[in-house]
């Protein structure tokens, strides 16, 4: 009797197992946990640990790893696996993701689930290998040709590199849509403790009754984006639009910090949100009423929390005559800024602090900007 009780207690108080993990490796572990059956990639810094790690692990697990001859080949191999009903992933960094855009447009047009990881580096062109957030527009506006949307998830810690990669596979299957995990070089290279999921993530129970998996005993299926018949393409685009509306309604994700009494509200994602949170904590210590909204989905964009907050800030200014403002912080020269401005819709000022490709924003710089605004 006593023994049982003791055993129980030990079990309950046992701390969750933490593993020190590199951001890029956390993406791999997330993909493996999510049941990714095939990975195709082509090397580029700062995401090389992904193909390097998966080259070993996927083979050990009896799954598919293939180093493609180019980025184009890799994204089209993903297309092939997806069309056959498998969970498939590719990863690259900014210039490589540009090369994949045609394939991503075809995935969207054919409504195929796929996970595309972008560990962003500085651009334009080959730029350099330091972390950046210059691909916000490319990821959230579609990136390739045509009227389509990617679901875009943006991690801000190594733990989220793991968690959001798992979520990416689930959302891709749920909506038959490409999902982009938008990380950056800092997150890819840094090490942090990760608590791996203890839940078994079998591919969620969605029967892929559209997959081209052999038509023996059933009618053949067709998957294509070429729709030449009168009105067929427009109809298809309306159908896609309906899906995008559903995603917008169901899948918005964000976190807020210290919003309750905030008069300066930071909006930042990914590593910039991490730095922004640090700056917020220092500013709070110095008496500044600073809060933070951190989008986790960049598309669908969390516009409602931002417009609600704008309303509240506006009423503070009206009733107390206090200065209130949004401060968007990005590692680019103002991309998400446009979405924040759309959501705020002129109700309160929107300030911006950013550094373009090659520069990393610091806590000190954000703090300086907060002081400047408060003057």
């Amino acid at each position, binding site marked *: 009797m006593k023994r049982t009780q003791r055993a129980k207690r030990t079990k309950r108080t046992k701390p969750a197992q933490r593993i020190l993990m590199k951001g890029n490796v956390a993406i791999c572990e997330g993909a493996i946990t999510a049941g990714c059956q095939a990975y195709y990639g082509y090397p580029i810094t700062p995401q090389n640990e992904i193909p390097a790690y998966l080259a070993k692990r996927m083979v050990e697990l009896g799954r598919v790893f293939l180093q493609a001859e180019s980025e184009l080949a890799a994204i089209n191999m993903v297309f092939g696996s997806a069309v056959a009903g498998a969970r498939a992933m590719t990863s690259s960094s900014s210039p490589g993701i540009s090369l994949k855009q045609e394939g991503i447009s075809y995935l969207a047009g054919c409504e195929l689930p796929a996970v595309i990881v972008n560990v962003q580096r500085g651009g334009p062109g080959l730029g350099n290998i*330091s972390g950046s957030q210059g691909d916000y527009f490319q990821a959230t506006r579609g990136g390739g040709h045509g009227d389509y949307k990617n679901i875009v998830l943006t991690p801000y810690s190594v733990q989220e590199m793991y968690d959001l990669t798992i979520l990416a596979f689930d959302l891709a299957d749920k909506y038959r849509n490409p999902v982009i995990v938008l990380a950056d070089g*800092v997150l890819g290279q*840094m090490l942090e403790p990760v608590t791996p999921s203890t839940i078994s993530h079998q591919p969620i129970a969605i029967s892929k009754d559209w997959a081209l998996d052999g038509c023996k005993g059933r009618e053949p299926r067709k998957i294509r984006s070429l729709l030449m018949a009168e009105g067929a393409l427009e109809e298809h685009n309306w159908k896609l639009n309906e899906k995008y509306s559903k995603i917008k309604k169901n899948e918005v994700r964000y976190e807020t910090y210290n919003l309750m009494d905030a008069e300066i509200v930071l909006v930042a994602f990914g590593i910039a949100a991490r730095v922004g949170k640090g700056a917020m904590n220092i500013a709070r210590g110095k008496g500044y009423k600073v809060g933070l909204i951190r989008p986790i989905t960049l598309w669908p964009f969390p516009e409602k929390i931002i417009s609600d907050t704008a309303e509240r800030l506006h009423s503070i200014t009206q009733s107390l005559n206090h200065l209130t403002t949004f401060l968007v912080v990005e590692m680019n020269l103002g991309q998400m800024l446009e979405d924040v401005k759309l959501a705020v819709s002129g109700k309160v000022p929107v300030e911006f602090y950013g550094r373009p490709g090659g520069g990393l924003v610091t806590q000190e710089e954000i703090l300086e900007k907060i002081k400047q605004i408060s003057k």
Partner: protein
Amino acid sequence: MREEIIIAGSGGQGILFAGELLAQAAMNIGKEVSFFPSYGAEIRGGSANCTVVISDKEIGSPVVFNPSSIIILNNFSLNCFLPRLKKGGLLVINSSLVNTEINRQDIEIVRIPASEIAEKKVGNLKTTNLVILGKYLGKKRIIPMENMLKSIKTVLNGEKELISLNSEALQYGYEYPLVVNSVNPDN
């Protein structure tokens, strides 16, 4: 507590290994921790550095401009990072290789001839990184030695010879007489 450490030297000196070891040990004693390496076209002999943040609370930025401690293994790194060290911060230098004069009065300086100890006492010059890391820990006492030794085993995953060599180096540094602000502790 919160401690931000930059370890800097040249590629091949084991800068990243020392940082990862520190991060691993800090995690094992229940701290929040982040490790950020300099990365890129890194080559042996080029410059290398990493930033380790250890804290009781959630960590904001993993990249730190003004660290509370710097561990410096060569002259070049001293010039880079000395101006960035916080007022009242700790500078640990490898006095075997660093001979530049230190022009700051507002910091604490600990010198250790780490390369010499690694070569003559431990018997392997490549353990300079662990000797100087040991000295830092001996001064700061933020992680108990037994946890550090355990972490060496975790990171080196069964490589018996390397585990004992690195453990020995760490202990030499840890126990090296603490001499603060003296010009040359060996004379």
